[in-house]
């Protein structure tokens, strides 16, 4: 691990892990009738925290891709959906695929499927990434957007094989089994919460490891200038596709975890809108920061939750429309005034207060 990010990352884990553990223990034990919703006025539930964990996994990958390597993806929800449906199909439709029950009904089969899904999606993304990532800027954004929509339509239309009914069309797949470890069921929700956050912190650690390594320096070089990076010996196409594959694999892993959490998956969860939502989260948290991932996810999910639950008190007839408006406005305002996101932008703002004497060893990754 390089010197630059070391102290702040230790601080991050030192604050983050106990906080997450405390929330989990609170929900698991419910001491003296206290619970997370009761303490936060119904704003934050364990369900939301699990989602934050899932999105953190995706966003770490997305931040590596967009913030560090500078490659835009407007279709990341496609990989999320591929992971979710891979898990769902191989566990629920095992008979259709003539997987022997002796295999499909063991406790470890969903875990194997999860790993396979992440691996296969990552490899597929590497394969797609080699040609697609030759494109730059606008063109790349549009190609990934097209890719996302194509995957969504394929999921919605049973991949063109209606007689097999693999993806279940519009209605998706129901009855996905909960995860088990031997005889230990990872449910009620607080047990699953610990699992998800274990993966989330793993993802953060992996992200930090990548950033502060040779690969991370190569990615930043690519962000700065591809030609310059190539001229100093960085194998640009390989690195770009590799980070694309890594981010896709992380999204797929989160998708598998989502499928076993929700036990139902429908294609609409993985369409164009959700892809944009991921970009919003990434932007709000700060693309150029791994720690931005949980903050972005938490902020956006809290805003959504607040709009959904609290808006009725102010405007009784309000439906989902305010969510879209608020989303759009947040996106525009953040991009205009705090393009580095809440974490990086916030830190920089703190640093600019001379009387606070705060120093962070953080370099700008922007070229020039």
């Amino acid at each position, binding site marked *: 691990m390089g010197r630059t990010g070391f102290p702040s990352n230790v601080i991050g884990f030192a604050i983050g892990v106990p906080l997450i553990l405390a929330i989990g223990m609170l929900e698991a034990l419910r001491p003296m009738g206290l619970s997370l919703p009761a303490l936060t006025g119904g704003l934050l539930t364990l369900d939301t925290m699990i989602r934050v964990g899932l999105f953190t996994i995706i966003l770490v990958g997305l931040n590596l891709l*967009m913030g560090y390597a500078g490659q*835009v993806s407007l279709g990341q929800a496609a990989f999320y959906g591929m992971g979710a449906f891979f898990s769902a199909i191989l566990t629920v439709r095992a008979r259709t695929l003539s997987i022997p029950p002796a295999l499909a009904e063991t406790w470890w089969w969903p875990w194997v499927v999860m790993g396979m899904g992440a691996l296969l999606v990552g490899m597929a993304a590497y394969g797609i990434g080699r*040609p*697609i990532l*030759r*494109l*730059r*800027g*606008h*063109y790349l*954004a*549009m*190609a990934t*957007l*097209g*890719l996302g*929509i*194509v995957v969504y*339509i*394929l999921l*919605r*239309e049973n991949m*063109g094989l*209606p007689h097999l009914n693999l993806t279940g069309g519009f209605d998706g797949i129901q009855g996905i089994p909960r995860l088990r470890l031997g005889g230990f069921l990872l449910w009620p929700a607080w047990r699953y919460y610990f699992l998800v956050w274990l993966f989330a912190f793993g993802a953060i650690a992996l992200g930090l490891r990548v950033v502060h390594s040779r690969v991370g320096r190569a990615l930043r070089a690519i962000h700065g*200038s*591809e*030609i*310059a990076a190539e*001229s100093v010996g960085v194998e640009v196409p390989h690195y770009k596709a590799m980070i694309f594959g890594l981010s896709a694999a992380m999204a797929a892993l989160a998708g598998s975890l989502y499928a076993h959490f929700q036990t139902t998956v429908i294609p609409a969860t993985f369409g*164009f809108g959700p892809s*944009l939502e991921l*970009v*919003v989260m990434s*932007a709000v948290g700060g693309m150029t920061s791994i720690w931005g991932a949980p903050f972005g996810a938490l902020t956006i999910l809290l805003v959504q939750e607040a709009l959904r639950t609290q808006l009725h008190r102010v405007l009784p007839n309000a*439906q*989902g*429309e*305010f*969510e*879209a*408006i*608020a*989303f*759009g*406005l*947040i*996106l*525009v305002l953040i*991009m*205009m005034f705090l*393009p580095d996101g809440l974490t990086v932008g916030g830190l920089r703002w703190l640093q600019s207060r001379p009387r606070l004497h705060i120093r962070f060893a953080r370099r700008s990754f922007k070229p020039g």
Partner: protein
Amino acid sequence: MRGARRPPSGRSPRSKDLAKEKQGAFAVIRDRTWEERVQFARRWGITAAALGLVIFLVLLGRRHGFGVPEYLQFALDGLRGGSIYALVALGFVLVYRVMGVINFAQGAFVMLGPMLTAFFYEQGWPPVPGLRLALAALLAVGIVGALGMAVERLTLYPARRASPLTRIIITVGVYLALQGAALLLWGPYAKVLPSFTTMSLSDPTLRFGGVRVKAQSLWIAGTLIATVIALGLFFGHTTVGKAMRACAVNRLAARLMGIPVDTMSTLAFGMAAVLGAIAGIVLGPVTRATYDMGLELGLKGFVAAIMGGLVSFPGAVLGGLVLGVLENLWAGVTVAGFKDLFAFVVLILVLLLHPRGFAGAEAAVERV
């Protein structure tokens, strides 16, 4: 844009280029460098692929027992959709050329046009339906144009030094906010515009031999032709139009010549919004107008613009028409749910194989 030359930053004229121009496309292969041979193979490969696609579609259609009249019918219906795509694509090209931004909010303007028109039409004044519709449409176009300019001034202008990704995300935010606003104002219900010919919900069908054409299709085609002529006159014969072209070629030089480039950007954005609104309004009687119609039309208009190379007005019109016809042929021979797949597969293929589009526009050259 007739006679517009690419900026000198594109690529320097090399002797190779001059030689190629002299020889034309059919020059002897062995006189070429490897780079040119790849280009040659690519160009003809794409032509062959396009031909192959058409043949494939026709063969698929034979299974359904389609004959020439059916294909003609598909093609004519496709031209209708294609004209709409072309109008939307013109807006994309206009904004991209003048400002270098891909304007995702274009879809919102396409949606607002018919929604506003229907809203004013429902007010019941003046009592003559034809006059009322014309007034409503004019008012809607005016409002959308003003809105477009306001959006540019308030969001993109302050962020004019931000990176392209930031600016794309801003327009995405604007799209979400406008769509949410439409949902808030008019709810999720479809609005219906009357047919321009009869001022009622029924649209007369004209028969030419074996093919049927809806009267509204003629309005749409007429609108496209009128718009193209108007744009041609505007860019060729007015001072403002010429100034806008100058901005597209080289912003700095235009500024040095005393052209107010920021005003031109605002104006271009407003014009693109107007083009989008017009496209939505003439489509209004054919499909119902809903708050979420903008996404699909915006994206397909974008695909059309990409097919035309993103910087060429004739290319955009051609791209729109070709996309419309092919998509409709495709929809005719496959299952209904796969209709939307076509445009996005084409998007990815065009971006990968031939990002310069029909018009052979310049490829961006990155400089260190």
